[in-house]
């Protein structure tokens, strides 16, 4: 697990993506870690290690929100675009490391505290899911202007490195008084790619993703509609898959003589026989697709001359869905639609991009701020959670992105 985290988080390269459609090359680095409930101390501890004290546990667990969302992404990409008459074509290579989890408070209790404090109680960790993966994305984009409309498209090949996911649709643990029995009721899907090789660029699966978008002007407003990274990775047959929907009651190892027990009884390995074993199977995982809709217009303000109002959503189902279940992908992405408004404040040297949003993984108001410098050679530095820099404590998000671009 430690190795997997290191690999997922390993930075490879960072090049930005151009924001307009001149010939250009860009390098983009994006780092974000955010949660709706758990604060910076939890995120930092999980990421960087350290001892979790009883006070820290109490602080995290006693938050009111029962569904703790955690999202982490660290990605680097390089992008080359060629502009031609009424269109452009682009090529990009990205290295992406994603982690997304929804954890119930009871799951946190069980994980961090154990079950001793919850005798004669049921700890419910239904709808807990943890997904982490690393892959490289090789994308070709193509855009064409037709009249006043621009149609955008893209196709990506995904080189899957590693994947780990636990999907607990139903789960609870009841501990009888004095621990005389424990009852575990669970429906768990677990998938993990080949654990025998944690090489950075090992190929454990291949996938494909599509982009499609439309940009047009309507009543002096620019409308942008897009779906990005709608795709999946098929992981190979060396992967471990585990599925069980069962109820398990454990009263201890049954013995003839209550006084005749030894090490083997105390070792948890004894339970293994009662737990279904994993199988080596191929499986499919969806990468998070981004759905976007925005409307941009002009203002009369001398400083904030443009505005954009939009909404982001994500679609990432646990597994294949049919048309009737397509909305499950939005729910299972753990992402609440993020509504935003942004503008541009231009100065002599810098372009400032303020933005206010609500929703997303934090399920809260977020303040974004980015600044770009330069014309031909441009550098942009920004954060999606600028408000966190103003807090003294209880930070629950941290993000930073950097774009370096050059027009050719």
């Amino acid at each position, binding site marked *: 697990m430690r190795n997997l985290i290191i690999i997922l988080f390993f930075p490879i390269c960072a090049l930005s993506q151009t924001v307009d459609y001149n010939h250009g090359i860009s390098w983009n680095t994006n780092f974000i870690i955010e949660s709706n409930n758990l604060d910076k101390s939890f995120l930092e501890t999980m990421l960087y290690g350290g001892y979790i004290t009883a006070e820290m546990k109490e602080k995290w667990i006693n938050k009111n929100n029962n569904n703790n969302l955690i999202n982490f992404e660290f990605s680097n990409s390089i992008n080359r675009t060629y502009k031609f008459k009424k269109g452009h074509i682009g090529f990009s290579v990205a290295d992406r490391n994603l982690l997304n989890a929804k954890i119930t408070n009871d799951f946190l209790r069980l994980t961090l505290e*154990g079950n001793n404090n919850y005798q004669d109680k049921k700890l419910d960790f239904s709808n807990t899911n943890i997904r982490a993966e690393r892959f490289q994305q090789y994308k070709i984009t193509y855009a064409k202007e037709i009249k006043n409309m621009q149609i955008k498209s893209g196709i990506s090949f995904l080189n899957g490195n590693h994947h780990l996911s636990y999907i607990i649709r139903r789960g609870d643990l009841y501990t009888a008084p004095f621990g005389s029995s424990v009852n575990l009721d669970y429906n768990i899907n677990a998938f993990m790619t080949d654990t025998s090789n944690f090489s950075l660029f090992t190929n454990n699966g291949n996938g494909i993703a599509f982009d499609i978008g439309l940009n047009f002007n309507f009543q002096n407003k620019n409308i942008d509609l897009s779906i990005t990274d709608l795709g999946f990775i098929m992981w190979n047959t060396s992967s471990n898959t585990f599925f069980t929907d069962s109820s398990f009651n454990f009263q*201890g190892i049954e013995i003839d003589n209550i006084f005749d027990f030894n090490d083997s009884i*105390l070792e948890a390995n004894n339970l293994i026989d009662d737990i279904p074993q994993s199988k080596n199977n191929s499986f499919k995982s969806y990468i998070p697709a981004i759905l976007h809709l925005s409307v941009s217009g002009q203002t009369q303000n001398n400083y904030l001359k443009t505005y954009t109002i939009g909404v982001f959503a994500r679609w990432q189902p646990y597994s294949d869905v049919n048309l009737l279940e397509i909305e499950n992908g939005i729910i299972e992405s753990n992402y609440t639609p993020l509504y935003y408004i942004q503008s541009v404040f231009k100065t002599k040297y810098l372009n400032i991009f303020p933005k206010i949003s609500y929703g997303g993984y934090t399920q809260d108001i977020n303040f974004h701020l980015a600044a770009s410098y*330069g014309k031909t050679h441009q550098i942009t530095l920004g954060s999606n959670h600028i408000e966190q820099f103003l807090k003294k404590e209880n930070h629950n998000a941290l993000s930073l992105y950097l774009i370096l671009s050059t027009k050719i």
Partner: protein
Amino acid sequence: MNKLPHILLYIFLYILFSSCEHELENPKWEVDMITPIAYTELNINNILSDSNVIINENEEGLISLIFEEEFITMNLDTLIKIDAIADEKTHTLDSASFADVTISDTATIGEAIMEIPGGTLLLPDGSTSTIPAIQNIANGDTININTTEYFQTMTLYKGMLILTLNNGYPTDISNINLSLINSINQNIIATFNFPLIASGSVVSDSVSIGGQTIDENLLAILNNMDINASNGPVLINYDDAIITNVNISDIGITEATAIFPEQQLTENLKEHSFDMGGAEIKEIGIKSGTVTVNVLSTLPNGKMIYNIPSLKKNGIPFTSNEMIVPEAINTDLTSFTFNFEGYKLDLTGKEGRINGDTVNTIYTEAYTFIDSTGTLETINNTDSFYSFIEFDITPEYAIGYLGQDTFELGPENANITIFNNITNGNIDLKDSELLLRFENYIGVDADLQINDLSVSNNNTSINVNLDQDGNSVIGHTYQINRASLNTNTLPPINPTITEITITADEMLEILPNNINTHAYIYINPNGQTTIDDFLYPEYPVNASLQMEIPLNFIANELTLIDTTYVNINTPEDVEIDQLFITIQNGLPLDANIHLILIDDNEMILDTILGNTIITAATLNNENIVTQNSITNSEIEYNNFSEVNKIVTIASFNTVPNEEFIEIYNDYSVQMTISGNFRRIIGE
């Protein structure tokens, strides 16, 4: 364009990102887990596990404890065991016979005439002439007698030498003197004289040659023979001859080197009776056993055949067939062993015997031989043939009259372990019984007389009193009827069952640790009957003493002590904070349990559960358990790796007080040991 600001900016950003780099480590935290460790459900079978106790239950599930002890051990093998040596006999060579030796010689008149000068002119062959008297025509003529065909040398202790002369000459002969001598040492064996042998007549004479040694080459020397003048002319035929026959007969050999012909030395046909005490057995089926023929022969070519016509398998009598006995080079016997498993032995004697069938008797036939080897062998009268037969037969069954016999059973003192762990308190039992059960598989009538049947503990003893029929058990004679044969069952026996039932509440309430028994069994107390007795030694009288204790009792501070050796180790990476024991009591008994923990040095480490009362299960109006009680207790001692054994002291009271309660098969006690562990995650 001035690129310096851009370069500086990129350097700044690189430093900024580099400074944010943080080494990735695992988070660590402590979890406090509680989990069941071990679980057991003890029903009455587990609680009262004792190899000497049988747990029984009736149709309602009421548990009874049955303590069973073998009451009688009867060894019947010796009653009909055949382990005997028979037919011991030495056969010497003087009983051997030797075939007659006959040798013939022919002397023609032609040969005699040719020895006379001018004889063939005077007496030509085919002429008719008068034969003149010729004196002393044979003077020292020698006839070679070759006996190589029969022997090389032979020293006789008896024998007759017979000389026969057949005068085929056409005239009489007279004054015949003939000596028979050994050619090697020239010893004269015999001398014969015949004054006159008329033409055409035969004369014979014999002489004893006992004590003589005869070589293979004998010489017959014709010391004198005269030819008398013929009575007128006679036909001269040169082929007319005097035929001499030498015959040695009735030969008794002291020593001989010869090619001996096959011949029977001895024949021994006899009945043999086995000593079976007072039993008179007619037939025995052999479960296993052997008959061994042991032989020692100094003869170079001994042979033996042994038959037991009364021993049959599938209707075929036993025969050893020819047993070739090698010549002894020391005193070791040669043994021929025959497996008699599955044979049936008729012990009524020889078939068709004069005085009718008998008992305990077999008929055997033994034959010894000198075999013909075709080569020269030297034997003498000290050579012998020694043999005896060993019978080692374990019967599968015996039929006949088993006789009158008395078996003393005991006095015996057997331990009762069922109450061993009870050290204190009182128990009031209900409906307990002591059952003496005799299952007789023997085809004999028997009487049983019990001299002692009592139980005792360290303080007191109590005797049995009356049986189910009101008889005083001690001294009363109980009849045990004979079993009968039934070929449709296996074993082919219909046993008889005799039971003596005794009320045993008082005997068992003293919590005895011993039972004392002494009895006699008399078989065939009324002597022989018209029905044959039978006995299958594997199926004697199964006699058991059975105590049946229905678990229907009142217990008052009934205290049990038991010691259990334990082996409890905890993994090094797990820290046990607390151990708990949860007891679900399904028995209608309150219990106070002390667990004394003892280390390897017999030192008491701690006492746990000392103040914990395990309450009885909930009962309904009929004193039937309706709900288990649950008792939780913390085991404060947690260093169990030092514990070597646990002494359990448990005192029990039945609930409700002073009322008999019953224990049913579905009552149980469930015990769970759970532990509170702390473990650091991420290490």
